[in-house]
Every structure is written in C-alpha cells, then in structure tokens.
C-alpha cells in the first residue's frame, strides 16, 4: 500500500517532468518562423525593425516574424552576456559590439558564417561589396583572417561637430588669425583639414568665461573650446587614446601578431606615451566634467547640444539629436567635418581612428530553417535599396554601392565625410579577454585623465597587466 503510494507520487513527478520537456520543445512550424533578436534600444535598430515589418517579404514564402528584444543601452552587454553564457539559447540573432566577438565566439555562441556565404552567391556579393575595413572589424575572428561571423547593423565613425555661428564669426576669425596666424575653419571642408595642433589652438582660443565676448555677444555661461570622449565607463577613453596612439605611429597590443607580439614595449612605447600625453593636453580646454573622468560620449554630446562647446568630436550615431531643435539648442548652427588627424611630414593627415558601431551575428543553436530565414533577412538587409532607405532615415551603410552614390551625402550633413573616413577605421582587440583588458586599461587611463598619474606610469601599468594576462591566456609566448 505504502509502496504503491510512493510509486504513484514518483509517476506523477515524472509525468510533470515530461510535460515540461514537451512544452519547452514545441517548435515553430515550417510556415511560421520567428527570429528572436537581441538589440540595443536606439534609432538604428528601431528603424531596422520598422522597415522589416513594413517591407520584408521572405523569398521562401514562409511567414517570418522578427521578434526584437529592445534592451536599453546601459544594460545591453549584461543582458546579452547573461543570456548567452547561461545557455538560455533565447536569441537567434544578436547585435554585438565588435570587440565582443572573440569572447562569444570562443564560448561557442556566435556562428561562423563562411559556409552560409559560400553557399549563397547573393550573400557573397553583398559581403564583397562591403568596405574592407568595416568587414575586417565587424566580421573577422581571429582578427584579419578569412573567418567571418558578423554583418554590419550600424557602422559608426567619429566626426567633428562644430558651431558655425561661432567659427564663422568675423570678429572671431580676425582674432584667431591675429593670435595664431592661422585661418579659423568655418566650412565643412576647412574642418576636414583640422589637425590636432589646430584643434588645440581652437581649444585654447574658445575658452571663455561667463560675460566674455563670444561671437559678438557676451557669453551667458562659461564656454569651452573642445570636447571628445575621455570617460571611465565602458570603452570611452580607450577609444580616444587608441586613435592618438595609432596616428602617432604606435600601436596597442596587436592580436594579429599573437603569439609573438608582446604588450610590454609596445603598449608603453615612447611613441605611445607621447600620444597619451598629447591627448591629455586637450583636457584643459574641455568642460570641467572631463577632469572627473565621467565625460563619456553622451556627456560631451549633451554639453555640445547645450551650446557649451565650440568643437566636439563624437560618433555619427549620436548626430540626430543635435539636429533636432527639440533636443538641441544649436540645431541650426552646425557644421560637420572629418575627425581631426595628425599631420605627417608630407603634410597629409593620418586619421586612423577607433571604429564605432555594431555588427549583428547569428547564434550557434539555430535550426536550419532559422538559419535559412536569417540569411534571407540578412540579404534583404544588405541589399542596396534597403541600405539606401536605411541611410536616408538616419542609418549608415558600409556597402560601397550605397555610400558612393552622390545622393548619400545629402541624407545627413555628416555623410559628406563618410566615404573618406571609412578608410581610416581600425578596431581594438577582439580576443575573449577584451573586457579584462578594457577595464584595467580604463582604470589606468582614468587616473591619467583625472591627473593622478602621468602617462608613462599609466602605460607601464597597462603593459605589465596585459603582458601578464595575455601570457596566462596563452596569447603571448
């Protein structure tokens, strides 16, 4: 009797288990395909979702739905990382910052797409039509090899945001000429030609106290010369420092040279130290928040939109807000140029710069039907018409056919700089240890930016840590 009771309870438990398993295993029917995608919540992804819903007709005839999980930016990494590493297998596609690739590929979450490209000539054509620097940064792992993983979702570059009303003011032009014997830039083309020296002059020149004359009027608040990202959060200061180091001819630890490339000696080379010092020299021309280590891309953008900065270098992806009079007090006073560079001996500008933006990837647990529909979606997404429409709505494209169309530069004022800037884009590490490398480096840069440590010590610390870590990981011999 008692034995029976026990058996019965056992059976009940078992049936409960099997019920749950069956419930979890219900798959989408062949006609109904749902693509689950994790994306950050911001306009480029919202536009994509909107276009998909209105325009996408799958060639297969299946009913394809794109179920997009819009995750707020500040938590995007945490959420995606937790979902992937816990084996939740929730998403079929995900937007990923380019530097996350290694971590999630090594973990076995992101799918290699070479087979899909090879099997599909249309997709291959689309990939070939992409700017090689973008393709390299967004898709390859190990970096610069022919192993592909991602497609561009929103490629992003740094540009100069400037205040036309101030730069083109006659009085200011005259005074600047008198002081530096240089022409103060005013048009977009003139801004394209700004090097860091002129950038520094501009910074110094436009430092104004409240009540000082600014473009013929007394300033209503303190005014600052320049701004770019030097924040401690995420990759902000690293993005700026990387550009300076590359332009000076130095380099960060280069994963393509592993396992022979060392961090010691490279990361803290004299060139790198000088480059970091160079970058630090501009902080005095920035709004005071830069000295607190919290001047991230949003803060400098916010200060610029509030009319506190003359010249700001920031991502194109944040540009829309400065054009919108609802969110920007300088909406009608803007001029854009390429991000500043370092002038070489030949007089040409070296503009090598940290790339922004994100690719999106497929995950490894997708079924064939999901993969098929995902590829269909990708091909649609990378097609010329769709990319053109995307760009016209405020997106950006890495497809040559799209951005080389003369109409492209009319979509947004900064698009003029797009094609020529792409050649200079470069990315930081893609190795799985990137977050470890990044946080320690950000900590160290923060000490330098807030004036607690000199450039040499900073880079020495970074180099020592990286050398140690990468050795442990087997990436340095």
């Amino acid at each position, binding site marked *: 009797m008692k034995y029976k009771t026990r058996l019965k309870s056992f059976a009940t438990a078992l049936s409960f288990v099997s019920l749950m398993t069956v419930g979890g295993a219900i798959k989408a029917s062949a006609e109904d395909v749902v693509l689950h995608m994790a994306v950050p919540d911001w306009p480029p992804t919202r536009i994509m979702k909107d276009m998909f819903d209105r325009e996408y007709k799958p060639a297969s005839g299946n009913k394809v739905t794109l179920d997009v*999980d*819009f995750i707020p930016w500040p938590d995007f990494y945490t959420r995606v990382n937790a979902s992937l590493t816990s084996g*939740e297998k*929730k998403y079929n596609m995900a937007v990923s910052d380019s530097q996350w690739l290694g971590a999630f590929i090594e973990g076995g979450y992101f799918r290699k797409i070479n087979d899909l490209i090879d099997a599909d000539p249309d997709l291959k054509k689309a990939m070939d039509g992409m700017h090689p620097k973008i393709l390299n940064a967004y898709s390859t792992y190990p970096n610069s090899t022919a192993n592909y993983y991602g497609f561009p979702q929103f490629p992003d570059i740094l540009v100069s945001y400037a205040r036309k009303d101030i730069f083109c003011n006659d009085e200011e032009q005259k005074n600047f000429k008198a002081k530096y014997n240089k022409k103060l830039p005013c048009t977009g083309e003139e801004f394209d030609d700004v090097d860091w020296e002129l950038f520094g002059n501009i910074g110094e020149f436009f430092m104004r106290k409240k009540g000082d004359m600014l473009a013929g009027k007394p300033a209503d608040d303190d005014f600052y010369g320049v701004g770019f990202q030097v924040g401690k959060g995420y990759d902000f200061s690293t993005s700026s420092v990387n550009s300076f180091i590359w332009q000076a001819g130095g380099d960060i630890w280069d994963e393509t040279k592993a396992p022979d490339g060392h961090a010691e000696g490279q990361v803290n080379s004299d060139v790198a130290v000088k480059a970091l010092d160079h970058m630090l020299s501009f902080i005095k021309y920035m709004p005071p928040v830069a000295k607190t280590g919290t001047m991230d891309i*949003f803060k400098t953008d916010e200060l610029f939109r509030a009319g506190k900065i003359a010249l700001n270098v920031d991502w194109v992806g944040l540009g829309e807000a400065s054009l919108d009079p609802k969110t920007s007090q300088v909406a009608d006073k803007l001029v854009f140029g390429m991000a500043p560079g370092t002038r070489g001996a030949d007089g040409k500008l070296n503009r090598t710069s940290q790339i922004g933006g994100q690719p999106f990837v497929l995950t490894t647990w997708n079924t064939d039907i999901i993969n098929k529909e995902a590829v269909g979606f990708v091909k649609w997404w990378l097609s010329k018409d769709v990319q053109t429409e995307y760009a016209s*709505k405020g997106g950006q494209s890495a497809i040559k056919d799209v951005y080389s169309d003369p109409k492209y530069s009319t979509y947004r004022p900064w698009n003029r700089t797009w094609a020529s800037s792409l050649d200079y884009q470069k990315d930081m590490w893609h190795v799985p240890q990137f977050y470890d490398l990044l946080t320690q480096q950000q900590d160290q840069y923060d000490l330098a930016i807030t004036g607690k440590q000199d450039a040499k010590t900073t880079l020495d610390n970074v180099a020592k840590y990286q050398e140690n870590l990468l050795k442990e990981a087997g990436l340095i011999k």
Partner: protein
Amino acid sequence: MATSMTIWEKLGFRKASRVGEAGWGHTLWAALVSFIYFLPVLIIVITSFKVQNEALSVPAKFFPTSFFGLIPEQYVFTPTLENFTSVFSRAFTTGGAVENTGFDRYFFNSMFIAGTSVLLALVIGTLAAYGFSRYPLKGNDTYLFIILTTRMLPAIVVIIPIILMFRIVGLSGSYPGIIFLYTAFNLPFTIWMMKSFFDELSLDVEDAARIDGSSELRVFFKVCLPQVVAGLAATFVFGLILTWNEFLFALLLTGSDTRTVPVAMNQAVAGGGIGVLWGLLAAIETLFLIPVFLVTFFLQNHLLRGVTFGTVKR
C-alpha cells in the same frame, strides 16, 4: 480673568500645550527640513514637466510660471505634459511613427510582480515566523542566522546558477520565475520581522484559546494574526519598497513581456541616440513613485506602530 492670548498664539504659534506635543512653530521647522530633504525628489518631479532643452538650462529653471512677474524669466520654464504621454507612446526615431513603448505593460508587470511576491513572502514568512516563534526547533537561532545570511551576499554571485536553473526549468522570462525569486528575496526580512512580532505576543491568550478547545489553526488565525496586523502592514511596506526598485534580477530574469519598470527605465538613460532623456526619465520615475508612495502613505500609521511593536520591547 481670561488669559490674554497674543495674536501669534491665536494663529497657532504657541508653545506646546503639553510635554511631547509641539505646535505650528515646530511644524515650520519640520516643513523646512522636509522641504530640503525632499528637494532632490522635487527637482525630479519638476524636470518631468520640462522639455529636453530646458531640463539642463543654466541657470536651472525651477518655476513653472513667473507668478505674475515675481520670478525672473531666466528661472521660469514652460511646463509640458509631453513627457508623460511619451512614457507610454512616442516616436523612437526622428520623424518616425508614434509607437507604444510598452510601459503600460511594464507598470502592470512591476505592480503584479512586486505585489504578488511580497504578499507571497508575507504568507510563507508569517507561517515560518510563527513556527520559529512557537515551536522552536533544535538550533533555532542557527537556522535564523542562515536565513539572514542569504541576504548578505552580493546578488551577482547567485545569478548565474539561478539563470541556469531557470533555463532548465523553463521559468526564464516568466512571471512565476521572477515572483518566486522575489519571494525568496523577501523571506529573510519577513521572517525576522514577523518572528519578533510573534515573540511579543502574550502566550496566555493563546493558551486560553486552546483550553477553550480551539484548534491550532484557529489559534493562529483568530488569536495571533489579528494581533500582528500592524506588523504585517509594516513588513508589507518594507518588502514592497525593496522589491519595487529591484534591478539586477529583473534585468537578467525577465523577458520583454515580463520586464519591470526599473529595467525599462534605462530606455531614458541612454536611448534614442542621445544620452539621458531627462524629462522622460523624470516622468517615468514620477509615475513609478506614485503607487508605492500612496501605499506607504496610507499604511503610514501601521508602519510606525508595526516597527515599534515588533522590535522595541524585546
């Protein structure tokens, strides 16, 4: 002969009429302190009525009207309700269509999840507290200490096992999952709090009820429970306040359908290709504050009585 009262006394600015009681003079002091203390919240509420461009103006604009020219123009902003409508529906891209933001759902989720889990914790925790108080086990204090210990670790430590567990059980992104988790999250506090209430009750009444032939259940429901209503209310409010704003578990364990407001709130911290949408964030927080504010306000008397009863006389 009537005592002469000054005009001030008539207005209420009198000395205390008895020890421990204070008049309007004290109110004035308390109002000043409360106002200063409340100021950061007030600025959030004010900001919720500002458009983005005015939210960060220098000098800061504090007044919705100039009060007939009393306040200089530079401190006056134009109040708008736009942020509040934007909480629920707005265009996500410049010139894009106005879409539902899902916040109606998120508000429901927050209330449902927090409410259910706090109540559940209250039920389970009260039973356990009664057990610990009336039928002490061997090593009772050790159990209680272990229960308290579960609150000491940073949540991040247990998060990976919990995600794994939820994935296997299929609770990920579902209501029951997060509700059970919050229940567990609230239990230690509930048990500790309720146990101290039960410890305070006089056992004579219960024994009398038993002698009168009441069952153990009846003793619990009819004799004990009515005596700790204030404690239940206080525990409920504390639990609600702590659960209402929980962020990390909600971020990692809710899906897009079960997302709560604290997580969705970050839409306004870096959303729309712009940094903080000050007005929107303020509007979300203001709306989000209202339910818990009202609950606390209406249970305020219980809150004080509850806390006192449970812990002082020990």
